[in-house]
């Protein structure tokens, strides 16, 4: 990974790290990928990927209304809101 790839990655992850910190973070990522790359020594032919240990079936339920006062509760937790909306910086000029 080089500096340009790192910049793209930081943008995708919406994380800002100052340019002067980039060499340090590149080094850290390189070390971790060195560990991960030990995977390449294994023979993985004809092996199905596993994404959940118990391979459970999905659970569904009736889509029903409940009595939680969701709007009030959730707006209360927001850093900035009014009675009905989350407030964010202006998006359209």
């Amino acid at each position: 990974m080089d500096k340009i790839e790192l910049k793209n990655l930081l943008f995708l992850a919406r994380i800002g790290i100052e340019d002067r910190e980039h060499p340090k973070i590149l080094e850290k990522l390189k070390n971790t990928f060195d560990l991960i790359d030990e995977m390449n020594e294994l023979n993985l032919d004809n092996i199905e990927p596993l994404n959940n240990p118990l391979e459970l079936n999905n659970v569904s339920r009736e889509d029903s209304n409940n009595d939680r006062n969701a709007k009030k509760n959730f707006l209360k937790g927001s850093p900035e809101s009014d009675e009905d909306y989350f407030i964010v910086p202006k998006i359209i000029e």
Partner: protein
Amino acid sequence: MNFKLQRENFRSKKISAKEATQEAIDKAKKDKFNIFINHFENEALLKAEHIDNNFDEFKDLSLSGIPIAHKDIFCTKNITTTCGSKMLENFVPPYESTVTKNCNAAGSIMIAKTNMDEFAMGSSNETSFFGPVSNPWGKDLVPGGSSGGSAACVAANITSISTGTDTGGSIRQPAALCGVTGMKPTYGLVSRWGMIAFCSSMDQAGPFAKDAFGCAALLDAMASYDIKDSTCSKRKEICFEKSLNKNFGNLKIGVIKNIDNLGINKDILNAYENSKIVLQGLGHQLSEIDFSELSSGICSYYVIAPAECSSNLSRFDGIKFGYRSKDQKDISNLYMQTRSEGFGDEVKKRILIGTHVLSAGFYDAYYLKAQKVRRIIKNKFEEIFKEVDLIFMPTTLDQAFEKNRESSDPNRMYKEDLLTIPANLAGLPAISFPNGLKNNLPTGGQLIANYFGEDLLLNITNKIQEVTDWHKMIP
């Protein structure tokens, strides 16, 4: 402090819930190890009073009148839940996690919430926004992580039980480093509802206590089928506390061939050899097993866990809840600055790794490959459990180490989880128990069982603790 005795004292009215709670609160307030993020003195005393006033209603519950500390990863309704992060420093959940709800219903009294690595990412409790936790066995030593506060709380005798979560070893490793008993149940036994997500396919909550008895009683309270978690199992039908008295007969226990090649500290290996003798003395047969794939687990884990973390943590954008960067005029900068200021270095690093391994050009090279390695590990366990009833190995490579450890190996911290990660990848239950002191510090032994073998793990650990006093050592 011994859970069994504490509960007996409450049930026989020797000590009231209020007295026990006041004692725990007093100790917690004097804590020198930075174990807690928040204390709840008034609420705890009120609940204790309520329990004392309604003694008959509470006396037979599994956690009746017992003070408890919960890892600050479990959402508690109208009570701040930080997950060890600046991002959630002032987050007040509008709902209660199933684990804390179950513990409350079982008669326990929450006195505090414990410190932890930020978003459960760490093996030394040094990534917490609220500062590192010290190990009660030595102030300059780490307690392990990520549930370091919960392990230290029991080790320091503040409460007899506490809760934790284990994604790659976050219960078992701190249990080993602090000299307490800690268990990661089968994936799906305990509901993840209201437990802040890190790696959803591996996260699992579990108990800490001095001994298997306390773990069994706490797990009885924690585990329940929960429709709110689609991966939650309906298998909770056994009473773990009762199963401690069951006779499972003489078992075949698998021990790893060539374990000396894994980089485990020689004192830990010595302790391990001692407990092998104890197991044989209890009538069990040890059988060498080949598990050369064991160390590949770590490569797979450090792809899958960051991948799921990058996805789970994308919800922290400063809009609906949690931290928001001040005075941002534009939405894009608001996201970027909120996440840059709200997350610590380790969390940022894991989000970056996860974003990379999931991106279009690298998905097959990393994520898919890691999932295949995960399958290999699971298959290997299945093969082994056709031959043996349990697997026994140490919990960690090292004993408690110094804070800010410098190592010539930059991946040493990640490798701390080498022996615990495989059970998470496969979703298997595993327990860590105190395995005797070396250099005046605890070591941990780990037993792994087949799916839903919690009763067996707790039973055998209890039998070991009946004939040894390793779990009675105090700092």
